[in-house]
Every structure is written in C-alpha cells, then in structure tokens.
C-alpha cells in the first residue's frame, strides 16, 4: 500500500485515503466544439502507459478532497514529486534529474 504525500495536507497519508484519477496534464480545450475527431481522440482516448515515470492525477478523496498531480515511477512506485493542480508540468530535464 502506497504512502502518498498530499501537497495540500503537507503530509504523508495512506493510499486508502486517495483515488487515482488518470493521466495528468491532459488539456480540455474551452472551445471543444471545434475540435477535429483526431484531436478529440487524442485528448479523450489516448493515454501513456509508461514503464517508468508516470505523470498522473490523484485525489485525496477521503482527506482534503483536492486533486493534485504526481510523478510516480511505475516500476518502483516511488513518488518523485507531487504538486498542486494547476502547477506547470515538470520539464523533461527536471524529470530526468528526479529519476537520478
């Protein structure tokens, strides 16, 4: 069972309080009606499934209730970083550094 740091509660809490909410940093355009079928497919259906660093969303659903983002290594389950919803996606350089 994972131990997850909630960036809003500023503490580590047991996985039982959290719900995974899928891939992070998928942008939902405000003008969706104009999206091409291909763009909609990419936005809604296509997901990364990396062996390595996964950028994912969690919700501290049985805690503070907030959605936040995390970088989790899918092999070791190590959380490299957690950050609040709305904060920028870490650059690839930063991710590479965190893996080390």
């Amino acid at each position: 069972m994972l131990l997850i740091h909630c960036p809003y509660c500023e503490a580590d809490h047991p996985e039982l309080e959290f719900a995974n909410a899928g891939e992070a940093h998928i942008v939902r355009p405000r003008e969706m009606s104009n999206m091409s079928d291909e763009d909609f497919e990419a936005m809604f259906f296509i997901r990364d499934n990396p062996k390595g660093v996964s950028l994912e969303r969690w919700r501290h659903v049985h805690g503070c209730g907030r959605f936040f983002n995390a970088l989790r290594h899918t092999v070791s389950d190590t959380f490299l970083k957690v950050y609040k919803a709305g904060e920028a996606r870490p650059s690839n350089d930063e991710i590479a550094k965190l893996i080390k």
Partner: protein
Amino acid sequence: MAKSPKATRVLPNQDHLTSNAFVTLEAAPAASRISLRASPRGAAAFAKNIGFDLPAKPSTSKSKSGVVALWLGPDEWMVFSESEPEKSLQPRRDHREYSATDISHRNTAYIVSGSGAQATLNSSCPRDLSQATFPVGACSRTILGKAEVILYRTGKEKFRVECWRSFAPYVWGLLVSGAQDANL
C-alpha cells in the same frame, strides 16, 4: 388549516454506549454543524460570524466558546457546536465568497476515550495516530474500514469520530470490535 403537529428529533445513534477497562465508546450529543467551503476572503468573512479566525494550517483546529472549527481542506472547514443544537450556527446563507451548508443531520459522532482509544481506532484506521503526528487538536478526514470519517483528537486519550448518519451503525460496529482488542 389544522395546526401542524410538532416533529421530534431522533438521533441515529442515541443509545450507543459501551466501555471496558481500556476504552469508552459513546455517542456524542446532537450538534449543529456547518460545512464551510470558502475562498480565503470568504474564510475571513465567515470568521466574523463565529468570532475567531479559522485554522489555516492543514489538519489543525481552533475553538472558542464551544464553537469548534476543523480544517478539512484548503477551502473547507467543518464548524460545529454542541450548545443549543437546534439554533444551529446560522450565518448569512448566500455569500459571494463562501458557502455555509447545514450538515447538522448529515453527520453524527462518537467519542472514543481511554488508554486504548488509539488502539481501538487503529484496528480500522490506517493513519498514524501517535501524538507526535496527530497531537491534541489535530483533525482530518480519513477512513475507518470502508467508511469515511473525520477524526478530531480532543485529548491525549480522547477522539471525536464524525461520520455520515447511515454509516453510524457500521462505524459503531468497527469501534466495538476494535475496543475488544484495545488492551495492547
């Protein structure tokens, strides 16, 4: 029009009480409760209704004159009072910067106290409830078995456990079971 009959209030857990050498479990009295969702400005505005600032640090609480405010999230507090529950905390209802929703009847609460209080809770709650990480005054939403609860530590050996009313029998069952194993 005939005079309307007066309704009477029935708590979902009013006869719940048990104890052993290590722990006492009892239903908390009726309370008025408000779920407050607020922007920072809204929190400041709401504070005027209760006469003290809301706790700003995660998982902490503040109280004054019987009114308790629990930090539950960055924009969420539960404010409750056990005095005069029928005259619930009634701030102005529609406000541009906050929402104060009456949840007096949604929730109910148990008091878990005694040297085995922490052990009783840890039979079903995965949280580290040691005083170092969950000191007196700490509060948090968490999980007790499959039920969502709010834990609020009111003393070294005393906790308040809030849950939704329909989960009360289940939460009670878990606490009673945990109490049987509270001696270590």
